[in-house]
Every structure is written in structure tokens, then in C-alpha cells.
């Protein structure tokens, strides 16, 4: 199963922090999907598709995603979360706002501010 990255973006462009998340994701699994949730976010979605190592970009566009409201974005992530082993996001104000909400909706714990990952000694933060 693949890994999902929730991309941080300003609709027209991707935030640089997403690249750090991508590097971390590729250390876990080679199949990485990027989710771009926004409004008129073609710019960010196309930028995500250009990144080396990304196998698929999911672009979900609707007016109510324009303000990046945690309530709406988390519900959207929950809707597709079932097909992924890991869900990653940048530990910025954006990721911190949304990811714990996703975790609670899925009834799983979350690890914040991950620094190193290794399959045997699971997470370091």
C-alpha cells in the first residue's frame, strides 16, 4: 500500500516544506501519492506532479477548501485514508492544524515532529 502526503500549498504554488515530507516518505516506501486539497489549485497540483518520486497526485478542488479550514480538509483526508499505510504532512501551522484531526477521525495516534524513521526502531521525534 502507498503513502499519502497532504500537500501544503497556496493553491497556485506548492509550499517548500512538502519537499521535506516527500524525502521522508520515500525513505519509508517508494510508492508515494500527494493529495492537493484546495480551490483552483491546479498550480500546486501540477507542481506536485513534477516532483521526482511521486507516483500519483490527487487533486481535489472545491470552493469550501479555499481557506484551508481544518474541519473540511480533515474530513476529505479521512474519506480516502483507508487505502494508505501512512499519512504524512509538514509540521507547520498547516499540518499541525489538520493532521491531529485526521488521526482522531481515524481513531489512531499521531506522531508529531518526526525526525528520523527506521522500519525496526519505528519513530524518533
Amino acid at each position: 500500500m502507498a503513502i499519502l502526503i497532504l500537500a501544503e500549498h497556496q493553491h497556485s504554488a506548492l509550499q517548500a516544506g512538502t519537499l521535506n515530507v516527500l524525502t521522508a516518505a520515500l525513505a519509508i516506501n517508494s510508492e508515494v501519492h500527494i493529495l492537493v486539497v484546495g480551490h483552483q489549485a491546479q498550480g500546486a497540483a501540477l507542481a506536485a506532479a513534477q516532483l521526482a518520486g511521486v507516483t500519483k497526485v490527487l487533486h481535489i478542488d472545491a470552493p469550501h477548501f479555499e481557506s484551508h479550514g481544518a474541519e473540511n480538509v480533515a474530513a476529505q483526508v479521512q474519506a480516502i485514508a483507508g487505502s494508505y499505510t501512512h499519512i504524512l504532512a509538514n509540521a507547520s501551522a498547516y499540518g499541525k492544524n489538520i493532521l491531529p484531526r485526521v488521526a482522531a477521525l481515524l481513531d489512531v495516534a499521531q506522531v508529531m515532529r518526526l525526525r528520523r524513521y527506521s522500519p525496526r526502531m519505528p519513530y524518533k521525534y
Partner: protein
Amino acid sequence: MKILVAVKRVIDYNVKVRVKSDQSGVETANVKMSMNPFDEIGVEEAVRLKEAGVATEVVAVSIGLAQAQETLRTAMAIGADRGILVETTADIQPLAVAKLLKAIVDQEKPELIILGKQAIDDDCNQTGQMLSALLACSQATFASKVELQGDRILVTREIDGGLENLSLSIPAVITTDLRLNEPRYVTLPNIMKAKKKELKMIKPEDLGVDVTPRVHTLKVVEPPTRSAGVIVADVKALVDKLKNEAKVI
């Protein structure tokens, strides 16, 4: 409007935290404990809303050891009306805290729930968001300004590179940032008054919540110490080191 504030008992922010010799955690024996600073800001904000005549009652909740009663007394000395302690000796993680708080919210039915954005011991920054998700209500994290306008709550949030203004429907969960307010010093008369306020003790089982930890800590280590600096002879040596050792230019 009724407000619920969650407070956590943590190692005092002035204490130098030490890792236990067996690396199983940090030393908490004989260490000064106090209320998590972000939670203190939350209590202060709730009490200010009450003093402004907007809120009718402020209920403080804590989860943890019996000693957390002191933390609740501090909250009541700031101005909370009563306290609830969910007493447990178990390792309680953010998801379990959110579930316990949800059970209390279901009983108390507050319109506004205020939490610190994170605890200074585990730095998780999750509980408020998780609680909001479980309650399926509005959420505003990292609040630096809270105002009430009719049946909406206006919140200014501190986000990367600026501020964000939100208008929330009720009920709502708000987590506090440092700039929200500066908590008052508690006075002796208020500490005495707080001793007479109601403090209810319950157990996680009473709320029907499974608090089994989901994350296992393998070990806790100190951050790497910085190696000592060296004095270079001249600019040439400095440039050489920057180029070949540090590889920054």
C-alpha cells in the same frame, strides 16, 4: 455561555529536565510541577470572558495523578468556578485525553472549550484538534485573540507568515498561543477561596473510555551536546574550514 478549560500538570518550565538513567523517560521524582503555561493562558482567557459578562461559568478539567488537584486549585484561584479531575496513574496519550474530554463535554455541554496549544512536556500539539474532531465542532488553533459577536466566536490565529481571522459557530474548540494574554498573579485571598470550591474526582472507567496507550516509547535520550569551538589563526584558515570542513561555502 459555559466554558470548559483543560489543564495539565507538567514539570515546571524553570526546571532543567533530566533523562532517567535507564532512558525510560524523564525524571519527575522531587521535581517542581506546575500548570502547563499554555493552559494557564486558557484559564485566564476563560476567566476574562466571565469577568466581561460573556461567560456564565468556567469549569476546569484535568486528567492524571491525584496531585493534579493542586493544578485544578490553581485554575480555581485564577477564577475557574469548579474543577473535575479524571484520576488515573496510567500513561495517558493525546487521543485518550481527547476521548475523556469528549465524555466530559457530553455531560457538561459547554459552548466553548479552551485548551493550551501544546503541553511543554511532550510538545504533542494534538489534543485540541483531536477533541474538536471527536465533537465534530469548529476548531481554532494557536489563537492570539478571542472575541464574541452574537452567536459567533471571532478568533485571530497565529499561522506561519501571518495571522488568520476565523468566525466560528458554537460549540467550538480553541487552543491558545502565547500572545493571547498574560495570566494574572494569583492572590492569597483567591487561593484561600479556591480551597472551598467544588472539585469532583472521577475515573476513566466512569466515563467508559479506553485509555490504552497507542504509542510505545522505546527510549528517551538527551539531545546531542554541541562540540567545543576552535579559534582559527587567520581569515585564510577560517575560509578553508568553512569550505572543506563545514562545507557551507
